[in-house]
């Protein structure tokens, strides 16, 4: 599992790679929260293109980061989930909570 966060043109992008499950989500959550609280970005995009597996632990991860960003005055987007991961997101109704592109 790898988390690579970069700020490009005022927009923060967190590129995740590997698998998101209950075990790996703890480390991802720690790294993202540290960045959100320190940098307070107005927009954070979580790029899922290199995520090869995600179960409902990923839903909790995204919902929690969306809430934290809102509390810090920011907004979360989810970018490029693979079709199968898009199904998990749709099942959870995530498109009503965050923008998915």
């Amino acid at each position, binding site marked *: 599992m790898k988390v690579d966060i970069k700020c490009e043109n005022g927009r923060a992008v967190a590129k995740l790679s590997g698998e998101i*499950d209950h*075990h790996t989500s703890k480390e991802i959550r720690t790294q993202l929260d540290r960045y959100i609280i320190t940098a307070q970005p107005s927009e954070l995009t979580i790029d899922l293109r290199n995520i090869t*597996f995600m*179960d*409902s632990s990923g839903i909790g*991860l995204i919902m929690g980061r969306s809430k934290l960003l809102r509390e810090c005055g920011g907004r979360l987007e989810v970018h490029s989930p693979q079709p199968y991961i898009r199904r998990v997101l749709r099942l*959870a109704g995530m498109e009503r909570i965050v923008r998915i592109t």
Partner: protein
Amino acid sequence: MEVLNEIRFTMPALSVNESAARAVVSSFLIQADPTVEELSDIRTAVSEAVTNAVVHGYRRSRGNIEMTVKLLPGREVYIRIKDRGCGIEDVDKAMQPLFTTAPEEERSGLGFSVMESFMDRLSVKSAVGKGTTVVMRRRLGGDEG
């Protein structure tokens, strides 16, 4: 129940073993030549059931999770995931979407919903103090060969 092939796998209820359970079920089912989508669905359902056992079943204790995967005639996959943890007091309530007893861990309460959506059949039997058994079935498309 006629069984064409079967594998049993026992693991300590550690979160790191969630990926091990997915790997075992994937390796075993390769012989049935499932589609990428079928295998993704089954791996996800297994991950949810094993995570439930780790997070909820053994919340206050340690123990093992037993996974049995069977290949049945008619390209049907049978999966049983069993723990001997604390059990579920009200199974119907636990299966309601968004219900969770672990919000502090950001559990979304969607585990059973994912299992129901991604598998054809799901049954959950539980007894307080004795543990929980989840049985899931999914028929694969394609020819029996």
